[in-house]
């Protein structure tokens, strides 16, 4: 059966059901927490930098929706071997993709299967879920110390507006 929409692809669900990088890196050189207060997504990204300054390994821990967790797992795959500058650039590319500023085809080469999250651009309330790990990674590499919130500056959850 086909997925009811383009978001919950077998690739994403595989990363959710059988994540490769969902553990705490014991020898992490940096960790950073990112939260989406209205969703309850709360992920911590861990990274170990090699002696030459490139990213040797990335992992994630925490709880969240399938989109935030699958996206984090895909990101961890892609970060290995990049310099922090390259990693930040990739985070920016991913941000453009999920905000609909870049097509999936245009991003596939760099983002590999993470490009499948492009369809989330049509679901504005979910963009922050896909972005959480990437924004947290980006802020960690910029030396941020405060937990990152992808809802900073965004419209709050409207809820049952009265």
């Amino acid at each position, binding site marked *: 059966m086909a997925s*009811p*929409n383009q978001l919950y692809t077998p690739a994403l*669900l595989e990363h959710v059901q059988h994540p490769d990088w969902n553990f705490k890196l014991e020898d992490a050189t940096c960790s950073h927490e990112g939260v989406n207060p209205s*969703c309850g997504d709360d992920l911590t990204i861990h990274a170990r930098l090699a002696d030459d300054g490139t990213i040797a390994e990335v992992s994630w821990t925490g709880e969240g*929706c399938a989109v935030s967790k699958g996206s984090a797992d895909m990101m961890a795959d892609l970060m290995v071997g990049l310099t922090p500058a390259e990693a930040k650039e990739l985070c920016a590319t991913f941000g453009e993709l999920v905000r609909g500023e870049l097509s999936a085809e245009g991003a596939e080469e760099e983002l590999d299967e993470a490009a499948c999250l492009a369809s989330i651009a049509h679901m504005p309330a979910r963009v922050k879920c896909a972005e959480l790990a990437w924004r947290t990674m980006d802020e960690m590499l910029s030396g941020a110390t405060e937990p990152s919130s992808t809802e900073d500056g965004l419209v709050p959850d409207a*809820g*049952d*507006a*009265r």
Partner: protein
Amino acid sequence: MANLCRAPRLSAAEAANLEVNPYKADFPLLVANPELAYLDNAATAQRPACVLEAETRFYETMNANPLRGLYGLSVEATAAIEEARATFARLVGAASPREIVFTRNASESLNLVARTLGEQVLSEGDEVVISILEHHSNLIPWQEVCKRTGATLRWLYPSQEGFFSEEEIEATIGPATRIVSITQLSNVLGVEVPVAAIAKRAREMGAYVVVDGAQSVPHVPVDVRELDCDLLAFSAHKALGPFGVGALWGKLELLEALPPFLTGGEMIDSVTQEGAVWAPVPHKFEAGTQDAAGIYAAGVGLAYLEEVGFEAIEARDAALGRALMEGLAERPFVEVYGPEDANAHHGVVSFNVQGVHPHDVSSILDGANVAIRAGHHCAQPLLTWLGTSSTCRASGTFYNDARDVERFLEAIDTVWSLFHGLA
């Protein structure tokens, strides 16, 4: 003005048959989207054609600034608002249309109450009692007024199913209680709160009783005299009317005693360089130009609800609650919150699918053209108390039917199979 609202009139028994749905045809959005199962009525209702036509008709035939002009059109615009005011008053059992104050929404009504009544009567040592079921709009205004006045906010807790015991009511509402502000129907659990019993205890303690009727007014017959409350807030958009129109009902003598909330044009009798004399109630609380077309159309929406009739509405809500609960009970991977008795849900069912985040559930349901809400439903303290950060919520109303429930349950199965590799 002629009654331009003709709604299907079904007996309770007929309305409880979800296979029959004469209502949908009156709702242009539902007609245009026959495959849509709209189950987010607790967030906002769909609007019948007569409401949309009323808004247009106002601008086409009555448009002028109400209350100001001395010419025919303005008089007509004023009459349109006052006709709506009479409908609002009738729906909640007000003694007079003058007891209805128009606001933008229930939140504004509750802010009005907290800022006027709250600031007038509260001081250090006093207590305001609300319940853990409250929507943020009946919580934050009280948190803020308590901070300003030094009063203490106290909470009523129900059983896990959402029912309040007499002991809890007696233990929480006491001599220090000055205001009790309580929802009549939970937007998360669907349970009805025993407002009359709470009001009785509050009266004995000499406290004011404020009711948040945002969720109850479209679903149960509301009679402010029977509830014995002082003030009741509700909004039009959950009751078939346009966005941006709300109301506050208040006992006339209380409204007269309260100071104005917002000030400016329309709410004064006379103004000098030094001060002003307030207009009589309700206009004292209606500063600035109102959304006259919206108010007029909101009155038509409430008239449509009256035509459908609360016997039919309650019977259909209960039938929807049963169909939703029975369907979910057959799926052991779904956890349902609130009463075990489906009839007590008023068509509102909050639930979670094991191991799947509610936002994922709602996105997958959206892919199947089923609209539900996921999140904290503007009741974060309640969800924390329930031990979860968010839930999914299907909320039905009289224009939903068996097909909507069926589509919803099919989509829930899709969620489960997607996440368990069965797809």
